[in-house]
């Protein structure tokens, strides 16, 4: 395209975004620092002041370990800016593990709710609380009404939310229509780690991440590595800052077939 048309297209895209979501555009995004991913996301990063869904398959719907890994890594730059709140129904989240990922566990307030409605209620309350920068909730699938409520709560103070799709006590998933109020929907599974440099043991944790839905963006699939977890990688000892995102791209999962295969295997 010619350079003269670019600003007009940008203005049109902004208008369409306004019509589509009534999204507050002033909150900005949190860049992954991985060009391939950031290019798929509107505004060049994970939209802030919105809420994001992180889903999983198979046994992970009960355990929800890979989603925790992904959400904690994606949000740890955010958590350093304020307080974080984690709402769950099953209290098996373990702070030493989070702190090993570089997540500031001492800034995390944990709330043990009794049922799913309470999880969503507490999340809403937390999202609207000043001083809280990121809120995680372990709920099942969020329906459209609950999702809109979460979105309104996010917009009040520009807080970002993560809903980890988890049914901690098993059971069937709720069948929902295709509509959802979340800004993005990710599907996360563990991926086999690389052979470490020393030759024994496990490599840095890897995740097969699929961006399934993204409002104003494009879907995609990648394999990411948390290179800095557990004291590995160069970024760990450095003073943590916003520009050093803990996730690193290993390989794009360009082939959708491959992505689905990985998902089924998990």
């Amino acid at each position: 395209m010619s350079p003269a048309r670019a600003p007009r297209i940008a203005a049109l895209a902004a208008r369409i975004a306004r019509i589509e979501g009534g999204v507050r555009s002033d909150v900005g995004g949190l860049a992954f620092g991985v060009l391939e991913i950031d290019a798929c996301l509107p505004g060049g990063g994970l939209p802030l002041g919105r809420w994001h869904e992180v889903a999983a398959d198979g046994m992970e719907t009960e355990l929800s370990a890979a989603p925790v890994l992904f959400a904690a890594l994606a949000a740890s730059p955010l958590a350093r800016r304020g307080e974080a709140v984690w709402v769950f129904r099953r209290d098996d989240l373990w702070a030493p593990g989070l702190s090993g990922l570089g997540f500031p566990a001492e800034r995390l307030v944990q709330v043990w709710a009794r049922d799913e409605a309470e999880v969503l209620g507490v999340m809403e309350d937390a999202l609207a609380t000043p001083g809280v920068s990121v809120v995680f909730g372990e709920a099942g699938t969020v329906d459209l009404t609950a999702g809109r409520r979460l979105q309104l709560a996010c917009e009040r103070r520009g807080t970002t939310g993560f809903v980890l799709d988890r049914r901690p006590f098993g059971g069937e998933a709720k069948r929902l229509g295709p509509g959802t109020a979340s800004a993005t929907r990710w599907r996360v599974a563990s991926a086999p780690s690389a052979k470490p440099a020393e030759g024994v043991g496990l490599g840095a944790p890897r995740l097969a991440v699929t961006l399934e839905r993204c409002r104003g963006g494009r879907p995609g699939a990648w394999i990411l590595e948390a290179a800095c977890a557990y004291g590995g990688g160069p970024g760990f000892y450095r003073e943590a800052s916003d520009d050093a995102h803990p996730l690193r791209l290993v390989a794009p999962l360009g082939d959708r077939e491959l992505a689905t295969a990985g998902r089924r295997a998990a």
Partner: protein
Amino acid sequence: METVRQARRLAAVDRRAAALGLQPGQKLTDARARVPGLAVAPAEPEADAEALEALVDWCVRYSPAVAADPPDGLFLDVTGVAHLWGGEAGLMADLRARLFANGLPFRLALADTAGAAWALARHGRDGVIAAPEAQAALLAPLPPAALRLEPEATAQIERLGLRRLGQLMDIPRAPLGRRFGAHTLMRLDQALGRAPEALAFRRPPTPWMARLAFFEPVSAPEDMARVTDDVVAELCRRLEAEGRGARRFALAFHRVDGRTLPLEAGLSLAGRDSARIARLFHPRLETVDPGFGVEAVTLCAYEVEALQPRQARIHAGEAPSAEDGLASFVDRLANRLGADRVWRAAPVESHIPEKAVTRIAAIGAETAATPWDARTPRPVRLFRRPEPLEHVYALLPDDPPRRFRWRGRVHDVRRAEGPERIGEDWWLRDIGDVSPTRIRDYYRVEDQDGARFWLFRAGLYADADAPPKWWMHGVFG
């Protein structure tokens, strides 16, 4: 009727039985011989104690300082509250009317000391009010039993012909103490106000109490909310005037039928913001059943501490400070879900995984323990109870498992790391219990799909017949 040393005796008698000459302590057979148609029921000391407790709670409407005096009495410290009822006589008349309305048999007395009030209530004229410093004259004609002594001590005093307390008071102190013991002397001094007496009040009395009484009982939900606001505002005004804040508030609704309905709310930081405190009570007001109406409401503040006054923001609508926002969020949750459902994880210096984390209050708690070592891989989810693994194939003696079955699925281990040997805290145990085989060998393994687990073998391969068991303790994701 109660059983004392294998003899069935009367524990209490009602008015009509007393008129027939029966008295507590009498043997049941004697009583039956005297009154053939006697109806007896077993004594229920627990129920009596419960009823007394309820009465003590109810009496908080008069004064925050109430002490139970089992088995059948209670002390009400009315210092400084009588003027609310127009003087001591007014207070007693109100108490009398209410007790009477509830159908309780009672005797009242009011005096400078607990001992004198006890003596006058049980052995004096009902409803007597001793003028300040004048209890000696009222006590003088009472029998020695009025001194709260053991029955044997009382009997001994009476054997010596001392039938009235006045005679006891006339005896010089030294011989009196020598003859009847220091206890008698102490009780006498306590009754006369010469020695202090400590009462075990129902709960530590707080000077931070507000009370609202209504001409007409209230019961409508909106009225209940309004009186809650009013009573909170009143106490908060006092707290603010004195530069203090409280962490715990106890609200009590006093119903017309004499029952008291308590509600409690806690703050994580001491506060006196009436709107915020009232909001903590509001969601739970619907659990309060006002019955035929609530005629008084009291609010007590506990854990009162000095609170630096903060300048109110000039822009009232602007966002409050971050701490303020989070503190009120945590308070809302702690009061709605329960304080044990909101926490922060804090490190504990222990190498045993399940002991390495403690839950501390979300606001205001500090920990001095060294943080967890971020370089040792630890799972993001730790099961409260390790789950058993089945069909574990592992090489002896301490190789990680090659394959295992967990939650009905077979996992082939591709990569593994370990063992990390974690021993028990033997220094906390009996020396006989300590054994070098009580260890856990932790492995971090990755299965064919990349899922990472934290599992351990409990113990060593020592006995071929009883191989050690394998357990799943956490997942890394």
